[in-house]
């Protein structure tokens, strides 16, 4: 599952860039160099066209009305579900639950599976490098149920200490929830090993694939993941749509999340029969356009080939790591052997906020701060970092522009 297949030959990045209108705009009068993909990715024309087409030609509510428009909308929505199913190699489309984002996916599992199966004295195992969305819902559950949150530690390079994981995984552990790829460090975690070990103890595993879904081929059946979440907007799709994958047996045994709309079969004031999967978890009118857009994004990624994208991004990342490390005072935060597409860094004693601001004036978009993952930065002893993160349309020239940009930042503060 490493992000380094053999070669990215034949990957035409200029042709890819032509598909993304925003990449040809300017910021502060400079060509946009977009290196904030870990926050959100830009959208190809086909995704934008799908959203436009949905609202222009297909807009209706789904699953109920007998007219042709409703049929078109339903096809757009359910068609997207099948695309997601194929994208992550789920066994059945009803294992794909549309949610707003990865965060809602984790909250759904914590609120339903968690509330039902976790009690006083039980333990939930997460890692030091979790994003807040895979910390807080579990913390809330622990408070409610009197359970304990246990955290897998990391080394200074930003890799999980698997020996410690082995010790933390006990008969008290009721669920393991780990990030596939860290948004701060780029570390790719050994989720196969984690899942195998957890399953040996009968413990289910939730994978947060928010960062990995657009960099690494996913196969939930090969991984034997019990739950997996990701967001559409990081996958070159729209905001407000995300996916929770769950194994059929687990989802069927879980109580519903929210009440209303499509999640019911029959309702009387005395009793409600819940609908089948996946509708049991999709209360109310869903983000139909968003799902259609996510389907288009998946089509787009599949047309390039996830393995091709991963190979191209890996070469680009290696190039950038080399180029950036030649800058005096550059310090990479997160140097895992297995990492992808993220450069979290500090530059001498220049505050990351000022780095981000001065790069912005040069048209270069990066993120700065704590990346909604406070504990991992506390662990590594840095208050905040600057973070440049790659997507499938970035180029070596853009990395070069970042290097030049950072040197200018240094010059400004050397005055």
């Amino acid at each position: 599952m490493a992000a380094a297949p053999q070669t990215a030959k034949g990957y035409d990045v200029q042709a890819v860039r032509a598909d993304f209108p925003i990449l040809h705009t300017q910021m502060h009068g400079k060509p946009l160099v977009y290196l904030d993909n870990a926050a959100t990715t830009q959208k190809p024309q086909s995704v934008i066209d799908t959203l436009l087409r949905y609202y222009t030609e297909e807009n209706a509510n789904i699953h109920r009305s007998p007219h042709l428009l409703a049929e078109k909308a339903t096809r757009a929505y359910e068609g997207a579900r099948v695309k997601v199913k194929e994208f992550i190699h789920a066994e059945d489309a009803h294992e794909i639950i549309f949610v707003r984002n990865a965060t809602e996916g984790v909250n759904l599992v914590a609120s339903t599976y968690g509330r039902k199966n976790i009690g006083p004295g039980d333990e939930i195992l997460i890692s030091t490098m979790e994003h807040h969305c895979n910390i807080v819902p579990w913390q809330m559950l622990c408070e409610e149920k009197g359970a304990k949150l246990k955290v897998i530690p990391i080394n200074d390079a930003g890799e999980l200490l698997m020996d410690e994981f082995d010790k933390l995984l006990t008969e008290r552990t009721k669920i393991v929830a780990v990030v596939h790829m860290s948004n701060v460090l780029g570390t790719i975690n050994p989720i196969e090993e984690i899942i195998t070990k957890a399953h040996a103890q009968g413990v289910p595993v939730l994978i947060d694939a928010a960062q990995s879904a657009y960099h690494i081929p996913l196969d939930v059946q090969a991984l034997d993941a019990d739950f997996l979440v990701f967001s559409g907007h990081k996958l070159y799709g729209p905001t407000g749509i995300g996916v929770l994958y769950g194994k059929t047996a687990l989802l069927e045994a879980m109580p519903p999340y929210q009440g209303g709309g499509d999640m019911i079969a029959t309702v009387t004031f005395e009793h409600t029969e819940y609908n089948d999967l996946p509708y049991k978890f999709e209360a109310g009118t869903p983000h139909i356009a968003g799902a259609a857009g996510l389907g288009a994004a998946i089509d787009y990624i599949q047309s390039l080939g996830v393995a091709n994208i991963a190979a191209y991004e890996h070469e680009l990342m290696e190039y950038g790591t080399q180029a950036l490390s030649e800058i005096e005072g550059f310090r990479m935060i997160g140097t895992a052997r297995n990492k992808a597409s993220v450069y979290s860094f500090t530059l001498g004693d220049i505050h990351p906020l000022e780095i981000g601001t001065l790069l912005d004036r040069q048209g270069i978009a990066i993120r700065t701060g704590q990346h909604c993952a406070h504990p991992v930065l506390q662990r590594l002893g840095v208050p905040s970092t600057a973070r440049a993160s790659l997507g499938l349309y970035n180029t070596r020239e853009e990395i070069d522009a970042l290097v030049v940009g950072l040197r200018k930042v240094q010059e400004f503060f050397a005055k």
Partner: protein
Amino acid sequence: MSGAQTQSIASTQDEIIDELALFEDWTERYGFVIELGQALPALPEEFKTDANKVRGCQSQVWIHPTLANGVVTLQADSDAPTVRGLIAMLVRLYSGHTPEEIVAKNPDFIERSGLAENLSMVRVNGMRAADKQIKKYAQGFIDATA
């Protein structure tokens, strides 16, 4: 600082806007804000407490208020140079004024000076959070002496 104690918050604000208007070039203005930050006396470590911290994701900001002879003195610090400069402006605006004056005045120099367009929303929101915290301190002084 002696002038600031005799003039109103409103006129200090106009003064700040006039100073910022001298810089047409963004880089110069940015450099000026950083210089203001450099001129701000460092906050002693003992005051860099959680209670004095303004919540925010991008940089750390601490504001320490004291009340003597009916007027508030603010000491403040940040680990980010531009944020330090902006905080210095707030310190200059409010120090030497009564809690009542502070609570009554909503500064709009960020908008009027064009700084809002120069700075990211993140920082403008940070400034607002700092202003809110100063008002909270002032209200606390009013409540304590009521």
